[in-house]
């Protein structure tokens, strides 16, 4: 029994990270219909930025995260401006390959600047908390809480503010958004800013329990793609739900099926679902 | 009965796009379907041509039930169609567009392709000849090598006709063939449709241009909110109260 609860907690932790990454990916997809293959590189850059801010400049963890979120967000904006914007009318293959180019660049950039080794990100939240024979570390609690807070905040932002609503509006009808006076170029940039910021936040939160290295984004991004397909490309609740579904299925799968095969679970799940429903689980209805 | 629908119904979620429509198309004539936007005209075409499976009802062509056949099989039976938004292979030349249209009447397969068999060469020529034939029929024999992106709206309409004709159809469904062309050109397209009928084909068209419909069609069906509200000759339709109210508009036509 406690192993189940402990594993549910573990699933919650990792699911939180997945959800944050998938959210950024799905936002961009929803608005610009770009499956951003370089999103994993943004995730990785976030980890390095926070790491550097803390170790080189001695900033506090949260300040470092803030800087990383902004910096990686801006990196996302640059990507939009210089790569995806010029490619907006190109065939669908091209943005994928261009994104791969960015990915290669950022990875080797990171390697050049920080070296290829594994780095450990310090955290002020090293405490271990044991309740009822379950073990939580503060960092893990923090991941869960921060992720949930951010997701709520993001949701409020999208639902309750005008600026947020522009993002939703644009994802539903780009021309319509333009016609009510929304600057769609700005919204695209804003979306990339948020997307990059979310990736940086996710990696900054997750890095202290793992490591920072150039390839750290690889599998996360692949799984994030699985999640947004599961959740319906462009759907925000879908991305959050999908993230947690995957987190739980992995931690439980590792316990009750096999740790060695837990990575396959995500992919098998996806293949099964698309086999039955070729357009994904939660496709948005009501298009006119 | 040549081609008929029985209680044909299509629902999209809660919306009943086509509701219980019984209609028969008369051989060798020009049949027309009119009705307000969203009345279900295009959907009706989609049901007949196998693009959407009906929710209920049947489509019967020359006595056989074709309701559940896939679109490509229906095309093989000799039922051809065009789309409302002119749908062509944009990145190709006129001739190339029309040549594939005859593909369904050929047999050659991968083996023929790899070994350049006699059959392939024969059929390739056959497709080319067919394409030239129908392009001549629609009057485009001089622009066969132009890219689709570089030709006019009216020429595109003609290419769409040619493409449909290249499949060797018996009956051809045209969805708003004259939309987006000027009155003069509309006249030309109308002549072309007449020519098809003279040639032995059966035509069924959707059109909003009433003058043209009234002049061309021998039989008209009117759809409104998915339901058939009238059917008959142009004169009958013109004077039908329900039609005037729902579509033609009392004052507009009077």
């Amino acid at each position, binding site marked *: 029994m406690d192993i189940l609860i402990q594993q549910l907690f573990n699933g919650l932790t*990792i699911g939180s990270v997945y959800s944050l990454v998938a959210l950024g990916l799905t936002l961009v997809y929803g608005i610009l219909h770009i499956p951003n293959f370089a999103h994993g590189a943004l995730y990785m850059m976030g980890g390095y930025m926070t790491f550097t801010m803390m170790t080189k400049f001695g900033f506090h963890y949260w300040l470092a995260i803030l800087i990383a979120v902004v910096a990686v967000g801006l990196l996302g904006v640059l990507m939009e401006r210089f790569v995806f914007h010029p490619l907006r009318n190109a065939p669908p293959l091209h943005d994928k390959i261009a994104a791969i180019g960015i990915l290669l660049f950022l990875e080797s950039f990171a390697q050049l600047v920080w070296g290829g080794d*594994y780095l450990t990100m310090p955290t002020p939240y090293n405490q271990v908390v044991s309740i009822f024979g379950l073990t939580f570390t503060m960092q893990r609690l923090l991941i869960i809480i921060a992720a949930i807070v951010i997701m709520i905040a993001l949701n409020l932002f999208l639902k309750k503010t005008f600026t947020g609503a522009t993002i939703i509006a644009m994802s539903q009808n780009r021309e319509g958004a333009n016609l009510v006076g929304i600057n769609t170029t700005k919204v695209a940039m804003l979306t990339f800013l948020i997307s990059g910021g979310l990736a940086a936040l996710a990696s900054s939160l997750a890095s202290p329990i793992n490591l920072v*290295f150039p390839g750290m984004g690889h599998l996360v991004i692949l799984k994030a793609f699985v999640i947004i397909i599961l959740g319906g490309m462009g759907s925000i609740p879908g991305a959050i739900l999908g993230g947690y579904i995957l987190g739980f299925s992995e931690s439980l799968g590792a316990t009750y099926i096999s740790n060695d095969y837990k990575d396959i679970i995500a992919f098998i799940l996806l293949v099964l679902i698309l086999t039955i429903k070729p357009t994904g689980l939660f496709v948005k209805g009501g298009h006119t | 009965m040549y081609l008929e629908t029985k209680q044909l119904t299509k629902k999209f979620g809660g919306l009943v796009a086509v509701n219980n429509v019984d209609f028969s198309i008369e051989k060798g004539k020009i049949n027309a379907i009119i009705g307000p936007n969203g009345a279900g005209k295009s959907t009706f075409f989609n049901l007949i041509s196998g693009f959407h499976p009906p929710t209920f009802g049947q489509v019967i062509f020359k006595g056989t039930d074709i309701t559940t056949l896939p679109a490509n099989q229906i095309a093989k039976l000799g039922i051809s169609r065009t789309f409302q938004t002119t749908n062509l292979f944009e990145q190709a030349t006129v001739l190339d567009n029309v040549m594939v249209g005859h593909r369904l009447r050929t047999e050659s397969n991968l083996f023929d392709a790899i070994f350049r068999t006699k059959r392939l060469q024969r059929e390739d020529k056959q497709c080319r000849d067919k394409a030239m034939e129908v392009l001549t029929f629609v009057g485009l024999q001089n622009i066969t090598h132009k890219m689709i992106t570089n030709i006019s709206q009216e020429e595109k309409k003609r290419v769409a006709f040619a493409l449909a004709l290249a499949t060797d159809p018996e009956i051809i469904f045209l969805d708003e063939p004259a939309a987006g062309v000027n009155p003069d050109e509309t006249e030309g397209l109308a002549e072309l449709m007449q020519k098809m009928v003279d040639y032995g084909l059966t035509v069924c068209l959707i059109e909003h241009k009433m003058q043209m419909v009234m002049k061309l069609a021998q039989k008209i069906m009117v759809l409104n909110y998915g339901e058939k509200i009238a059917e008959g000759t142009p004169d009958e339709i013109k004077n039908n109260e329900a039609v005037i109210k729902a579509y033609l508009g009392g004052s507009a036509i009077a």
Partner: protein
Amino acid sequence: SDSTTGGSSGKDGEKGVVNIGYSGPLSGAAAFYGERTLNGLKMAAEEINDEGGFEVNGKTYTINLVPLDDKYLPNETASNAKRLVQEHKTPIIFTPHSGGVLALQVFNEVDNFIIGAYTSEPSVTEGGNKLTVQIPPKYDGYVEPFTNYAMDRFGKKIAALPTSSQYGKDWTETLLTYWKKQGGEVVYESSINFAKDTDFFTVITNALKKKPDVLFIGGASEPTAKVAKQARELGFKGGFIVMDQAKLNEMEKITGSYEVLEGAVGVLPLIYSKAPGVPSFKEKYNAKYKEDPGSEAGIHYIGLHAFIEAMKAAGTVDDPKKIYEHVQDGLDAIPEERKTYLVPKITEAGSFDYELHFGVVEDGEVKEMEAK
């Protein structure tokens, strides 16, 4: 530009250049590993060149290292080797991954070059290749002392959570077989893919539920340290057997102190080694790369020295077969101050045979133990 020499029939005072090849991951995920292996070679080459080169048959040669990136892909290793041999006439090519070594073994005897194989994959020597030298120590030697130490101190139940590489798997199999033979019990066995797993908590939780006395962990030092640390966080009190790929000193940087690693048994980190060449090597390496050298660097360093000495002994710089025959002489001739490791001999099959030392963490510090 760099024309290579050839000729073993040089005249006195004549100068030549010997190209030494290297093909390893210099970009991509494993680049840091590739670079460290290369650093060892660079150190050795510079040392020799700074002395003005080395003399073979009266002719003085300097070393020109030609490193090429293969992104860890065997087919790229093969292309690189073709290039090295054809364009640079390298008699020796170092490759730090088994895939690359195996791909080279397809043609190295025909194309005539020695592979400096940095891999403990047994099949690279088992295949009977006549020009392959396996330069790292074999892990079999560690199994017995590690087992004895951990079993005596902590108990008979072990859980294994090594890296998922083939090396990790082979290690695990050898260790666990021996462990069981000694009357121990294996309570949990799984592997972790460090490059791809986002969180180790899940698997550690599962392992600890089986109440092991000893955890077998290993892989690159940093993630291995993470595993140890997280095991402690989850309440693990027992000891660790650390696979030789991970180094206790590097792990300590991650865990913050040796306390977390109390009771760990692993290879003796190079910097704690009492081998005569270590202090100066460590100093130079520190100065140059701003970090402590690891075994990848140390082994490549001594590897290159061994080959250069072998060339001297063989009296040729371009006859790989002859050089290969004289590796033993080379090992014997390595000056004391360059012995980062003690390698008394090369086995019949072509593996360096080390004098093994290992380290244990007791009372918060690393102590050296000698394997018998």
